[in-house]
């Protein structure tokens, strides 16, 4: 623990174990991403022979060219990007307004509201009644089915509520005395000083929307309205079936198409996966200091 003391045998053993675990964990966590990356940059037919571990053997952009020339996939990216932006903005705003109000000290009927909140957190009607509801609200096959059902999560409300409760009451009071309306106070004073919790909830919502495939699979049949995670899920389903039937990936691909083609189902899948993962890798490290607090509040105090 303290520098200057002579390191004991125990220190050496523990440090040895600790650093070994740390390095193993880092390799096991990062390597699958790295591997997907190098396969996505390798000639697909060549990659199906195996033996690629550290860097591309026959470098090629063809997989990405194929991904970005697939019109269905481009449309799906459009849907996913739109739903992520619209969905996150709507959901964060709604969640914040609800949480801010529930955090109001003098709120009447508070206990009833909290009871409704808590029961909704621990119990749910499950998939089938939910599906019937979505269908009867005529949300099936609309873009709104990506936005409206995901507007509010009780878990996120609790995280935000806990945060708003810690803000000094005097802020609200002084704004009120200065004649600002409650809504104005919220948007002009509370939102700017609550950046950390907004960042946390926006990240949770954004990642949820970006990764969502189930609603796209079961609530939407229109091909032009499918999300990119759904398209990727279909590619992965195919891989699953290939694994079962045991056809050689490369052979099946080659016989099906013309000889000049250099990509395979696997290399296309890897390239698609990388395009889905990269935006997340670019965003989450910068929000780390915020969500570390957020998850603490939500799980331990909630």
């Amino acid at each position, binding site marked *: 623990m303290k520098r200057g003391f002579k390191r004991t045998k125990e220190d050496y053993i523990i440090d040895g*174990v600790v650093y070994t675990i740390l390095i193993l964990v880092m390799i096991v966590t990062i390597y699958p991403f790295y591997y997907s990356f190098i396969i996505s940059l390798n000639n697909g037919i060549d990659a199906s022979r195996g033996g690629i571990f550290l860097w591309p053997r026959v470098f090629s952009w063809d997989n990405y060219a194929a991904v970005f020339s697939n019109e269905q996939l481009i449309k799906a990216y459009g849907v996913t990007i739109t739903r992520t932006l619209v969905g996150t903005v709507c959901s964060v705003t709604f969640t914040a307004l609800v949480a801010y109000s529930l955090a109001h000290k003098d*709120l009447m009927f508070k206990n009833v509201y909290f009871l409704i*909140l808590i029961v909704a957190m621990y119990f749910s*009607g499950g*998939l089938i009644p939910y599906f019937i509801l979505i269908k009867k609200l005529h949300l099936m096959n609309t873009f709104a089915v990506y936005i409206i059902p995901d507007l509010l999560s009780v878990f996120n409300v609790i995280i935000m509520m806990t945060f708003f409760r810690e803000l000094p009451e005097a802020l609200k009071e002084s704004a009120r005395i200065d004649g600002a309306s409650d809504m104005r106070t919220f948007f002009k004073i509370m939102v700017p000083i609550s950046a950390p919790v907004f960042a946390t909830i926006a990240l949770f919502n954004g990642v949820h929307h970006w990764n969502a495939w189930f609603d796209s699979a079961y609530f939407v049949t229109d091909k032009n309205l499918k999300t990119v995670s759904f398209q*990727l899920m279909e590619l992965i*389903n195919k891989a699953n079936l290939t*694994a079962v039937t*045991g056809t050689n990936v490369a052979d099946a691909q080659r016989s099906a198409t013309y000889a000049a083609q250099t990509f395979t189902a696997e290399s296309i899948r890897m390239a698609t996966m990388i395009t889905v993962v990269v935006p*997340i890798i670019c965003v989450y490290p910068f929000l780390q200091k915020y969500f570390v607090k957020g998850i603490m509040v939500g799980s331990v105090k909630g």
Partner: protein
Amino acid sequence: MNSTQKFWKRFQNQKFYQICALMGIGYLLVFAYVPMVGLIIAFKNFKLSSGIPGFFTSEWVGFKWFSEFVHDINFWQIIRNTVVISLLKIVFTFPIPILFAITLNEVRKEGLKRFAQTASYLPHFISWVVVSGMLFSFLNSQNGVINQLLMNFGLIDKPLSFLASADYFWPMLVLSDIWKEMGWWTIIFLAAIAGIDPTLHEAAVVDGAGRMQRILYVTLPSIKPTIIVVLILALGNLFGGGLGGSNFEQAYLLGNPVNNSVSEIIQTYTLKMGLAQGRYSYATAIGLIQSVISLTLILISNYSAKKASGVGLF
């Protein structure tokens, strides 16, 4: 001013907050409570054409669907798979973040510690769809990394069919769950460790305790309340897949005709019966069984944790 007037004055005064709160509550009533009410179709003969009013108007059939499920030829297999997968996850997935948090806490090089932590969160933000894609690439028997390595080291003669076999399915679920969620849940335990009063450690040092002894007798007991809270959360979602809640996505994405005997769980079966075959009442009954067991589990675990240690969620 009489009390009604006072009431309205107070309400007027907080109009903005009431409107926002009621929007949220109204939203929950529609999207959370209407489906809860819809659970009654588990005891009815519901037709989709009758819509939401059909929740109430369709005819009662009592426990017909439940007894049909119990007599379903897949019943025992589905129950076994759900229970075994869930228990395996609690037993093997739950302790890992605690151990990793303790390990990270022993790292003295701040930069390395932060990098390792940041890297360990990454899989949490990636969808199971992508993780499944990686698993297919790593485990397939043509050019999968794992098979190639095992062959290169001479541990096996011919590739193992990890994906097209029932034997490797459960270990694959547990290991991939650990891979994906370990770093995320480490956050909580690491924060709990950081909150330990440093004088406790100093006192232990004065008393001549080594590092291992301090881990066992200072660190672990100090984070016990956090461990219990997280354990209750995990137990409450036992059949959903514990902390990560991953049972459905794993079973759905990694399940295939060959491993069906070990991959079919209540949630995937509900989906098949309900959305694929349109047997809404039957599927709701199957889903309800899981919800009721889950709710009971969270109440029991919360109660016993409170009894045993004074720590509970509610």
